[in-house]
């Protein structure tokens, strides 16, 4: 088998990643995230009508009954209706609103769910979420630094940050709601991407120790070539189940599945290009991964 010259295209990949990061950051800055109810606070009501729901009629009913700012959309099917009230309505309003809808509707209405989140909870959650992300990155860096070497830890963390930012940017650009399950998915992406990065790093370390008379860039190319099969198979199986989840898991889990789909795809890419490129840029060499020589008996044998 020929060595695939992965690193030949690393400047193109770096350009792509850089561009993606700039776009993601810009979008997060300008458009921000479409925070879900968990983070913004407010009230959300999902009801199922007996027949196709007339959204316009529902909107005018709610307007006339004093639910200003209510957002009415259909959810999944045309019989399912989602109403979102902004912050400022009390915890009682969701329940009374269902009664209002019930009185105004010609058909039966079934309550599917009501969610009310107070403003203080949302703020806290955002803070905790960010903290969790940083904590995860920090601990991972520590572990990889301890098990491998500092340069590998930097490579892993850069790749992880890249993936997280990419998914965040995707959600921001597409304007998809970012709720608690998406946050969980994002942390799972960290876990998954890390998995990939470590498998590659493991092989790079092994090859640095094993191969003779070869430039670092070639060692990385060999390692990536050797692990490519495994990388693709694992990503494929994971993407398969995620696809099943996204298509058949229902609306409530859709954002979660989507975040993971994007995350796993970009995580696969980043384990090849981002972490390996970072390693090269930091000048990784054989010495970085040498098995530490024990003092005493063995060092004698090394005398020329």
């Amino acid at each position, binding site marked *: 088998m020929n060595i695939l010259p992965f690193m030949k295209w690393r400047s193109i990949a770096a350009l792509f990643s850089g561009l993606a990061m700039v776009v993601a950051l810009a979008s997060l800055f300008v458009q921000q995230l479409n925070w879900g109810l968990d983070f913004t606070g407010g009230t959300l009501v999902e009801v199922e009508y007996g027949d196709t729901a007339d959204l316009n009629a529902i909107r005018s009913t709610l307007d006339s009954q004093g639910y200003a700012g209510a957002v009415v959309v259909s959810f999944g099917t045309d019989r399912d209706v989602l109403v979102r009230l902004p912050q400022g309505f009390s915890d009682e309003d969701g329940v009374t609103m269902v009664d209002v809808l019930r009185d105004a509707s010609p058909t039966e209405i079934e309550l599917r769910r009501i969610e009310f989140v107070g403003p203080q909870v949302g703020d806290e959650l955002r803070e905790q979420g960010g903290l969790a992300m940083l904590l995860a990155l920090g601990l991972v860096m520590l572990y990889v630094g301890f098990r491998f070497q500092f340069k590998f830890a930097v490579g892993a963390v850069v790749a992880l940050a890249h993936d997280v930012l990419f998914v965040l940017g995707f959600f921001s650009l597409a304007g998809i709601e970012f709720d*608690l399950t998406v946050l969980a998915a994002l942390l799972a992406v960290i876990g998954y991407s890390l998995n990939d990065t470590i498998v590659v790093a493991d092989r790079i370390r092994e090859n640095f120790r094993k191969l003779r*008379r070869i430039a670092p860039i070639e060692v990385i190319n060999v390692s990536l070539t050797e692990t490519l099969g495994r990388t693709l198979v694992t990503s494929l199986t*994971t993407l398969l189940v995620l696809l099943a989840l996204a298509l058949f898991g229902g609306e409530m889990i859709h954002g979660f599945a989507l975040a993971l789909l994007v995350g796993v795809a970009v995580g696969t890419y980043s384990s090849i290009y981002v972490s390996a490129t970072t390693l090269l840029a930091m000048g990784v060499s054989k010495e970085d991964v040498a098995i530490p020589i024990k003092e005493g008996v063995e060092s004698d044998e090394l005398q020329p």
Partner: protein
Amino acid sequence: MLNRYPIWKNLFIVAVVAFGFYYAAPNLYTPDPALQIGGASGSQAITQASLERAGQALKSEGIDFFGEELQEGGKTALLRLRDREQQLRAQAIVARELGDDFIVALNLAPTTPDWLADGGAQPMKLGLDLSGGVHFKLEVDVDAATQRRIEMYEAGIKRGLREERIRGMVALDGTQVVLRFRDEASREAARRVVYDLYPELLLDRVDEESSWLLFAQLTEQTIAEVIDYAVSQNLTTIRNRVNELGVSEPLVQRQGSNRIVVELPGIQDTAEAKRILGKVANLEFRLVAQTNAPVTDKQKFEYRDESRAGMTEWLERDVIISGERVSGANASFDQNGQPAVLINLDSEGGMLMSRATRNNIKRRMGVLFIERKYRTRYQRDEQGVEAAIRVPYDEKKLLTAPVIQSALGAQFQITGLDSPAEASELALMLRAGALAAPINFVEERTVGPSLGAENIALGVKSVQIGLGLVVLFMVLYYRVFGVAAVVALSVNLVLLVALMSLLGATLTLPGIAGIVLTVGMAVDANVLIFARIREELANRISPQMAIHAGFERAVATILDANITTLIVAIILYAVGTGPIKGFAVTLSLGILTSMFTAILGTRALINFIYGGRRVDSLSIGRLPKPVDGLIVDRQAVEGESA
């Protein structure tokens, strides 16, 4: 011999798998919709007769039921129904038949057969997003609680200075008490008084022009205590009230420093639930009536305590003070070391109490506990449809009636209690009845039963489809090795379900997503191993050696990759709440079980298929060509595998 597991290792794996199947099995039995009947008060037992009455009522309405039984020695009873659709109607019928002495709750009764239940095997609990129900998050108003405490200090300090005849001004300023004196001597005297009264306060002296100031502040520790006190008080009250709601498995849990989470599976009527949770209990202090008092001036009350059930006491109609005057009640010990309850009143309460008790020493004073309860009446409207109407009433019962030993003030003790346990129970009830720190609903989620059922169906479907796709791919790509991996993957799912059932973990929708994700990621370990074996084979190493080396070399990589993922899952668990915690639990357990099945399980299978005999080729799919033109350091390779 190469690729043979010692017999104990095979037995160990078989044992673990058997264990997994045993503890996962209860999840196969769908639970019956059921009604759980309990007494409205602890002393109210359920007899076979009342259970039969309930059954008769159901029969006459044409609702099928079976398996009715008394549980916990008659404390509760269970009635299983055939049809889930009829559950709500059945509840109404039985509630009506048995009246307000009993609480009828919706329940899902497990149908775990005895041979499983005897070993402690139980089905997984379902989260609210799967079972339907209400989730509340309540926040205790900590500021209000702190404010009330500082007001109590202010009153106490004023009284102390008055008693010691120290002249000065006492005022409240935010969360501190400011004392202002004309001379330094008064301030010093006052400082000693305050310190003697409340050693927990932080005292700070400040000199201003012609006035000497003393600031009394709450320490961090005291504030933490106040919050803790307010939250645990609310926790107790809410626990008591949730039982009235007729929920079979409610959850009332403290979260963080000042939040309380309440989960009520099966409840749909949030308004009713909130009314009951948010209602305030109260206290009344009244003198015990003298025997010759006319009947118009006195009332008879029962004791609340079960051990004194049936005993009554006549109290005067006049109320000395009620609960809002009580600022605290704590279990403590009197000067003889006997258990006692220390009660603090606010200044107004102290005045009223002292006025009432001064001339009534050696008489007894009763403490009433007042709870809002509901009676159900049934009425027909114009259309002749019968509707249940809940009529509120106050239930007043006697907590205790001790003898007044001396004139009482803002702080007094109830002594003569039998045990420290009785003292803390009494203090708890007094606190529950005293005006509790206000609570706010900061989060509320209601999931309808149809959505819950749909979530389960969708979740199961995605697990099936996801698993199906992975199975197909693995078998096509890795042939015999793929089959081994698929078997291991299935056992992995069984073990995961078994562990979750055994640990009493709650299955939520994100939890199901975690299972799906585990399916996708669990094969990774096998993929790593198989890729290694293929590489070894490509390097013209004998099949047996290749299997051996493939497993050995991949293990370190698998460990590193999984431990880091585990770190992330643990962070997720620590930070997340509710459903997210569920996801973190499934993810972490999935990582652990998948390492076991992928490394040990697959190895055992492969050993069974290929081990200990001459093998010419392995059915593991297409081999990669070795990478050309590399010079390999043999020493380094051997050094590593050693």
